[in-house]
């Protein structure tokens, strides 16, 4: 049964409230997980667990949040920035993320800004309604 974008986002919002102990009004579509909602690395796994349970799906670790092997690879990272190859790889790995801003200056320090509530909604939507 297909879920609407709204139903999915409501459930994502609830999941994030439980996982991060934040209030409903903080979990806006534009909120970044780390900057705005205070998520730390262990929280990402917690979020994955909870989303899997809430939607009855399996989430491969590299899909929703990027794999560390990408960041530890010289081919993909140079001088604290993603190389062109690295950026292409990341984009391919995370089609649910909006890269418009990040692309202009792919500084690793700005990577946390990529993870927004809306990108989780998009990701789940693609998973749940893929059949």
């Amino acid at each position: 049964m297909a879920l609407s974008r709204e139903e999915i986002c409501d459930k994502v919002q609830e999941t994030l409230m439980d996982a991060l102990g934040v209030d409903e009004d903080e979990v806006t579509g534009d909120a970044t997980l780390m900057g705005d909602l205070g998520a730390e690395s262990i929280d990402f796994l917690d979020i994955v667990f909870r989303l899997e349970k809430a939607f009855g799906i399996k989430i491969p670790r590299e899909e929703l949040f990027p794999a560390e092997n990408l960041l530890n690879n010289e081919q993909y990272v140079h001088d604290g920035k993603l190389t062109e190859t690295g950026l292409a790889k990341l984009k391919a790995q995370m089609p649910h993320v909006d890269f418009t801003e990040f692309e202009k200056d792919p500084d690793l320090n700005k990577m946390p800004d990529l993870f927004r509530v809306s990108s989780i909604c998009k990701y789940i939507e693609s998973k749940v309604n893929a059949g």
Partner: protein
Amino acid sequence: MNVLVWSARQGKENNLRVRWIWIDKFVEFVSGQRAVAIKNVSLAEEHLHDHFPGYPIMPASLLIEAMAQTGGILVGEMRNFSEKVILAKISKAVFHAVVRPGDQVRLEAVVDNIAEEAATVSGTIRRDQELIAEIGLMFSHIDKNLGGMEFPEENFVFDNDQFMDLMRSYRLERTS
């Protein structure tokens, strides 16, 4: 150096056991699923003299510790204590009543999720039928986490004989 690694190394060098045991025994243990432990609370425990003078109640943090030991052993046993299982996150801690000297609390931990890197556990604490607390915990298998940081080879989490004795006495009681 990471604090955790440092304290583990110090502990080994000085032959210290930095952990202490905070549950009395297991009364149920279903591998990979659930465990129930008992803790008897006694006025002989020194912290109760200060928490609080004239009104001794078990600190909420120590109720969480008891649940963390129950859940941590449950998670560790699933992989035969080969993983270094450490408490990574308290996602929920809601308390409904206080625990006093003379009480016996029953800690039930249920595994919600387990993956290569971590596991989550839901816990409830009861005194008889009364619900005392609901606690959600997340454990990290630290060798598979923390961005390739290196930890001591030996398993400093489960090298505590008392932990193993808890399991042994549970099994002995079952079979006798």
